[in-house]
């Protein structure tokens, strides 16, 4: 094993929208290029990485302060007040959970559908899923009021002889989210094993060799290893596939099962799932575009990847738009005065009408630009649209949670919701947690699947062979 810094022969040029890999790549260059991001000397790390991580880390500290204050004083430090008992905590929970969905979709469904453009973005988006679920999972627990009793959500033999209420969708959430987190972690880690072995073999120091060696769990790359590996990976993909649909459906039940106008809607499960994938792809783009630029990965994450993701965003965005249209239509068609009032209040009469207007602008109007191929081919434009969609999807959850709760059936209980500085600090704090984890991941683990990129190289150089997709 040579200990020299590997030299990359392939140049970082984008091969255009037709290819998933830049020209001049072979097995070695792909390996060196992806591994090079991790083994890059500390001083040569792009400056943007340091700035990005510093921003994330500052936000992490703000998060810690906000949570400490919350633990000292209780949930009263937030803007929640009866009847708006959910507020930011649930808005952020749904937003983060939704973002995770793109990772699962890319990893599992696109794998089973044998989409060649998933390969260089799957690892990255799986990590994103994992970190997004971690951020999401914190919010319901922080919102409990007595978070140290969160284990009461789990059915276990206890001295009170009480079990969680199985008819409550909030308990379904516990199972949906914990299953999701477990399967996502397993899937991500299983995918990493062959690459961890590559990292072990490439690592220069004994410490790095040991750490990657332990994580690689003795992977030697024998034919038997690969055969078992592919079976396991395919099984996990099969397990993950229903989760793409089920997790956000269950999250939508939190609302749909309640009888509150604005929540009690049968369209919620599919519309939430579409929204989740919409925001997830937006987040993948928001992260992948800068990282691709900083580390010169244009030949691995090509315009084809970006264009495909933009198309998925456009498609799921249209499903979401249909959902908004249906909500308006049903409010009118039902003839129910509460439904009609809810919708008028949300869109026009209420003091938060402007959030609804912004939501329509961000989620429906602006993304229509993606119909144009010129826009899809413009990395900067796609990046801006992806940020806009992230904001829009957050606003969607805000509008659903807040405007519905502010005006329930009894006008005597109406109230107004204003987030406090601690709401914002907790929210931006989790963004910091997410970014910090993401940057650490990019720095410490191969952010693009090395062995799957080698498969892509093989397919491109041996076009006559049948595709060696997993499990075949």
């Amino acid at each position, binding site marked *: *094993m040579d200990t020299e810094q590997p030299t990359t022969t392939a140049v970082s040029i984008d091969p255009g929208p037709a290819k998933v890999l830049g020209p001049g790549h072979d097995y070695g260059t792909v390996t060196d290029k992806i591994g090079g991001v991790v083994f890059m000397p500390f001083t040569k790390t792009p400056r943007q990485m340091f700035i990005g991580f510093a921003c994330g880390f500052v936000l992490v500290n703000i998060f810690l302060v906000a949570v400490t204050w919350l633990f000292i004083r209780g949930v009263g430090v937030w803007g929640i007040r009866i009847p708006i008992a959910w507020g930011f905590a649930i808005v952020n929970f749904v937003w983060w959970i939704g973002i995770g969905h793109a990772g699962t979709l890319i990893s599992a469904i696109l794998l089973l559908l044998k989409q060649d453009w998933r390969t260089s973005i799957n690892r990255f988006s799986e990590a994103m899923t994992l970190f997004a679920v971690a951020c999401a999972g914190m919010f319901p627990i922080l919102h409990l009021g007595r978070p140290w009793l969160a284990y009461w959500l789990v059915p276990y*033999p*206890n*001295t*009170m*002889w*009480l079990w969680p209420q199985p008819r409550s969708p909030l308990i379904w959430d516990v199972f949906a989210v914990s299953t999701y987190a477990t399967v996502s972690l397993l899937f991500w880690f299983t995918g990493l094993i062959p690459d961890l072995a590559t990292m*072990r073999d490439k690592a220069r120091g*004994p410490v790095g*060799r*040991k750490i990657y*060696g332990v994580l690689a*769990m*003795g992977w030697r790359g024998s034919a038997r290893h690969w055969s078992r590996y592919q079976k396991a990976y395919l099984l996990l993909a099969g397990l993950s596939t229903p989760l793409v649909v089920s997790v956000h459906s269950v999250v939508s039940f939190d609302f749909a099962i309640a009888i509150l106008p604005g929540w009690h809607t049968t369209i919620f499960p599919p519309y939430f799932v579409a929204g989740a994938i919409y925001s997830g792809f937006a987040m993948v783009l928001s992260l992948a575009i800068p990282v691709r630029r900083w580390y010169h990965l244009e030949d691995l994450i090509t315009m084809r990847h970006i264009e495909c993701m933009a198309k998925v965003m456009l498609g799921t965005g249209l499903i979401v738009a249909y959902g908004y249209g249906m909500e308006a239509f049903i409010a009118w068609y039902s003839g129910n005065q509460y439904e009609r009032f809810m919708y008028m209040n949300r869109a026009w009469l209420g003091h938060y009408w402007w959030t609804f207007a912004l939501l329509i602008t961000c989620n429906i109007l602006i993304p229509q630009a993606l119909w144009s191929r010129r826009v899809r081919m413009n990395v900067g434009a796609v990046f801006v649209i992806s940020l806009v969609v992230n904001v829009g999807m957050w606003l969607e959850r805000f509008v659903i949670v807040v405007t519905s709760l502010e005006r329930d059936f009894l006008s005597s209980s109406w109230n107004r919701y204003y987030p406090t500085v601690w709401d914002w600090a907790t929210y931006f704090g989790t963004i910091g947690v997410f970014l910090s984890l993401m940057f650490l991941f990019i720095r410490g683990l191969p952010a693009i699947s090395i062995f799957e990129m080698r498969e892509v190289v093989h397919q491109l150089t041996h076009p006559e062979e049948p595709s060696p997709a997993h499990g075949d």
Partner: protein
Amino acid sequence: MAQIFHRSANSLANITIAAVILGIGGLLWASYRIDQGSFITEVGIARQQPVPFSHKHHVTDDGIDCRYCHTSVEVSPFAGLPPTETCMSCHSQIWTNAEMLEPVRASYRTGQSIEWTRVYDLPDFVYFNHSIHINKGVGCSTCHGRVDLMPLTYKANTLYMQWCVECHRNPAKYVRPREEVFNMTYQAPGNQMELGRRLVAEYKVQSLTDCVTCHR
């Protein structure tokens, strides 16, 4: 290239997996056992008292009824602790020089109550009423055990909500005829369920399991 790990790493990996699974399982099992054990619940452990009062002696040997001392048990939430005068109704005549009873006499002289240590101490967030249980046919010994056999008083049950709820969900398992409530030697008959169901109907015992029944 030299091997990164020694051969023993293989065994170590397997042992680690087993240790993690067994360790977590063992930890959960141990915490459950500790939670149920008398270290936490104090079941079966006699508390230190200012005077080593023996229920066994007073109930079994002397034949004193529970209500001689716990006077309000049938009519109030609190069963009642006897004032020193109740003790002195006998002990002004017998054992008048016993060293053991000096705190009782001191209390009588000074008017300062004896500070007994509560054995059955429910948390403050639980509302409990003795009289309703007595009047619906729940015997003393059902909750307090064979107090007539305790030289020093100890808890016979955990007072965990689990334990309360077990009876509240199905009172027929424990209800006895009203005239047997103060009978410390009462044994549940073979046809307890049949009798229980009849008594539940007759005494109009409700199976109250709302949170607000006890947590008011």
